[in-house]
């Protein structure tokens, strides 16, 4: 669960990125966070992942209060999140399997856990046959599915996808969104940051629209750019 209570964020250079954000994302929800460039989406992502702290307001992420979280607790909080990036951020010299095992090793998983969990996640994203391939041997859509698998492999409460379809063609984008929807149906909360209007409108999920550091719309089953149901 994510809770923003009157969150303000002002950077050292004086830029006011967020101006009193209030939002709540409950466990099991599928949410689109939309808005133009510079609206504050990236700041919200960084706040959720603990890369930056709010200037003012109260922020809770999966049971952790990020206002007074200790540096030692930040890795534990991040283990409750799975993050998917627009540019995939896969390690080129590692195979698909090794990319996933790398993420599991990072939190100290044993070899037995790796052998049990990775095949299951690869099956879930439809890449069980490509475990031994390197990222460069995969299409863009497949690489993003590996990135989603990596985000899922540590069994997080929530997946945060930052422009996950930004580098993909419309068909592959749709596949990725359908995969995220399926993951959500299996019980994982999903937050997708995007500005792809067609995709958002097609799925008719909760849409939080942000502009100039403020939430301008928050509707379940909503549409992008105010084209409401």
């Amino acid at each position, binding site marked *: 669960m994510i809770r923003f209570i009157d969150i303000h964020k002002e950077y050292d250079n004086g830029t006011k990125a967020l101006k009193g954000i209030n939002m709540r994302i409950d466990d099991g929800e599928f949410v689109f966070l939309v808005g133009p460039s510079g609206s504050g989406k990236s700041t919200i992502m960084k706040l959720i992942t603990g890369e930056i702290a709010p200037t003012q307001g109260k922020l809770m992420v999966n049971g952790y209060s990020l206002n007074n979280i200790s540096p030692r607790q930040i*890795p534990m909080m991040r*283990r409750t999140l799975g993050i998917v990036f627009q540019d995939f951020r896969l*390690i080129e010299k590692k195979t698909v399997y090794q990319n996933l095992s*790398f*993420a599991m*090793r*990072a939190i*100290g998983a*044993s070899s037995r856990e790796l052998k049990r969990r990775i095949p299951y996640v690869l099956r879930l994203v439809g890449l069980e046959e490509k475990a031994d391939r390197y990222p460069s041997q995969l299409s863009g859509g497949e690489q993003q599915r590996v990135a989603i698998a990596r985000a899922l492999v540590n069994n997080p409460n929530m997946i945060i996808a930052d422009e996950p379809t930004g580098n993909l063609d419309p068909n592959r984008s749709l596949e990725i969104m359908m995969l995220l929807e399926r993951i959500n149906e299996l019980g994982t909360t999903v937050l997708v940051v995007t500005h792809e209007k067609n995709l958002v409108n097609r799925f008719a999920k909760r849409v939080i629209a942000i502009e100039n550091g403020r939430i301008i719309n928050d509707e379940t089953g909503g549409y992008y750019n105010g084209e409401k149901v």
Partner: protein
Amino acid sequence: MAKKFDFGYYCREGVSSIFTHGFMSFAAVCMIVACLLIMGSFSLVAVNLDNMLGDLEAENEFLAYIDESYTQEQAVALEDDIMAVPNVSEAIFVTRAEALDDFREGRDNQLLSDLEPDVLRDRFRIHVEDIELLKESADAVEQIPGVADVYAATDIAQGFVMVRNIATGIALVLIGILVVMSLFIIANTIKLAFFYRREEIAIMKMCGATNAFIRWPFIVQGMILGLAGAIIAFLLQWGVYELVAKAVIQSNGLSLLAILPFGSLVPVFLPVFCGAGLLIGVVGSVVAIRRFLQV
């Protein structure tokens, strides 16, 4: 679920990183070897000089000659005054007759058989605790009423002390400089490895890896470089020492010098070399990665 300390993983990553940056690793090992070789060489000189000084302390006492007007009883009675002098550990009274016997011993000369004990004085053979204070002790004993003169081989003792002190001083300065240079090179090697893996580390942090988990492979890398440097330096030191020792022993002019066998120094020098190498490696690694982990 999570394993607390994945030693196998840290070792694999550390070793792999050494070979990824082979040249920097080689340079780091060379610096550690140079540092430890110099430290070892000066330490070995100091240890041998200490040993020789120990021999001097054990074998070469200074002599205090008693005034000829003193009877033997009066002379013996001076022992308490001599023992009261600081740094004096033992005072052995030697009569004129005993002194003459000692003088004759080993000398095959008919002329000596005609000598009378009266030509010599009663004396004390005085041992000191610290050879560096030999001159001060001898001067103090000379001030005691009844002591006519003293004889102390202060020149030899002070010569050894001076050489040892100079060797120690030079060693400390050189070790200081080389330790700083070694730390700098190790730190740069680790920084390079860190920079090379920055994407992986960013991913690890996003997955929830702790700083300790990220730091350990780099510390292992530093430890391996330090240990490798230490072992190579130790083996080189051994070879150089044996060569020098052989040359010194074969030199007739330097028969005064007693060189310790390297085998007797291994139990001390090997752990010191390994410890110093490990310390340089670990400190270099920790310094290098400390500021990169603040995310």
